[in-house]
């Protein structure tokens, strides 16, 4: 009796669908455990992605010729896209020139890190922790503050940010702290959370679809196979959609960074 119950329990356990969870984003440390240089799966993916990106782009840059190859043309198109469609479009050429390297770094790095979630073998975005988007957002806000202080001076910069013109003075009592909060916390965290949440949700939905496909098509292998076909189609759709989201999030992060930095400059007459 006990034996048969036990066998039944094992079968039930085997038949359970493996569901993705937030624990996927808190993987155990696999190298240098307990040190500040500990490496888990996501960081390993991030390091590998960085090495691959630096190698590919480095070789492309080193071999760049006046008459470009197809690959070089594609990379040049990306550089042009960041320069013209993001930086110059938001800031103009005069202001924007200074920030082209920064925004190119942000856009291309995040693009590669986000796309890791769609690369078989990696299966998780290298930006799928709160820290990486936060570090990038902090860099953005350092630039924001530096530009504001350089252009206006710290006093005027803070005054312009906390006490916007045209507001009745009693409102400043409420508005000034909110503005300061927005300046220090809300803007960087909105950038961070937007990217992080998109990477997490994308991974969870895609992993859920694939897990359901595995469950319906292979584990159960009965009349529920129909659901497996549907979930497989859904996972293919989500895979393509996640590629789009990965590109879109890199673009949004880059364009918002540019817009925030541009806001720190004085208004043009």
């Amino acid at each position, binding site marked *: 009796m006990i034996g048969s119950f036990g066998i039944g329990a094992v079968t039930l356990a085997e038949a359970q669908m493996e569901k993705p969870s937030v624990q996927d984003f808190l993987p155990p440390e696999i190298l240098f455990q307990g040190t*500040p240089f500990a490496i888990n799966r996501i960081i390993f993916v991030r390091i590998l992605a960085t090495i691959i990106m630096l190698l590919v782009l480095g070789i492309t840059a080193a071999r760049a010729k006046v008459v470009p190859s197809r690959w070089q043309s594609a990379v040049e198109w990306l550089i042009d896209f960041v320069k013209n469609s993001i930086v110059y479009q938001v800031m103009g050429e005069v202001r924007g020139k200074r920030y082209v390297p920064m925004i190119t770094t942000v856009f291309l790095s995040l693009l590669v890190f986000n796309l890791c979630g769609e690369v078989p073998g990696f299966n998780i975005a290298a930006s799928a922790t709160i*820290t990486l988007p936060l570090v990038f957002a902090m860099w953005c806000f350092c630039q924001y503050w530096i530009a504001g202080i350089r252009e206006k001076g710290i006093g005027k910069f803070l005054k312009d940010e906390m006490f916007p013109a045209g507001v009745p003075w009693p409102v400043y009592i409420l508005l000034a702290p909110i503005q300061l909060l927005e300046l220090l916390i809300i803007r960087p965290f909105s950038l961070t959370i937007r990217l992080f949440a998109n990477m997490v949700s994308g991974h969870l939905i895609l992993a859920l679809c694939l897990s359901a496909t595995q469950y319906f098509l292979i584990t159960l292998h009965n009349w529920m196979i129909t659901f497996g076909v549907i979930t497989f189609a859904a996972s293919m759709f989500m895979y393509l959609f996640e590629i789009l989201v990965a590109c879109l999030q890199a673009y949004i992060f880059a364009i918002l960074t540019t817009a925030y930095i541009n806001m720190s400059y004085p208004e043009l007459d």
Partner: protein
Amino acid sequence: MVTLAEGGADLFIPKVYDIVWSLIILIIVALFFYKFFLPKFQSVFDERAEKIKGGMAKAEQAQKDADEMKKEFEAKLAEARIDASQKRDNANAEAARIIAEARSRAATEAAQITENANRSIEAMKQKALVEVKAQINQDAVRLAAGILQRDLTDAAVQQDMIDKQIDGMASADQGK
């Protein structure tokens, strides 16, 4: 449930090693883009722009050269046309002169030939006349000799007859 909630909250707490690796990677990537990647591509863009600019300058120079050559060619062509026209005029004039000369020479020669022919005809005519006269004289003499039964070819006879005639004429005058 509690574990899940804790796990969810953990997601938003940055780990020290994650911060360290994120910063290291950001610094490396930023250095790469700032110091190598973008300057390298910028130099390629500049070189390309320079070449395009140089190419355009070359094309402009080539266009200028071509225009100059065209002008030169057109000038030479006009000159050649004028030259050819002059030569044609000269040739025409020369031809006209040659024709006129030939005509004149032919006319002179023709006149000469005609004159010679006329002279020759005249000479022959005179000769014929002389011959005819001589023949007539001879025939007349022979006829007269026949009539007179005398040899009029003899000078003495002729003298005798002349004398008789003169005498006859003299007696005629006296009778008048």
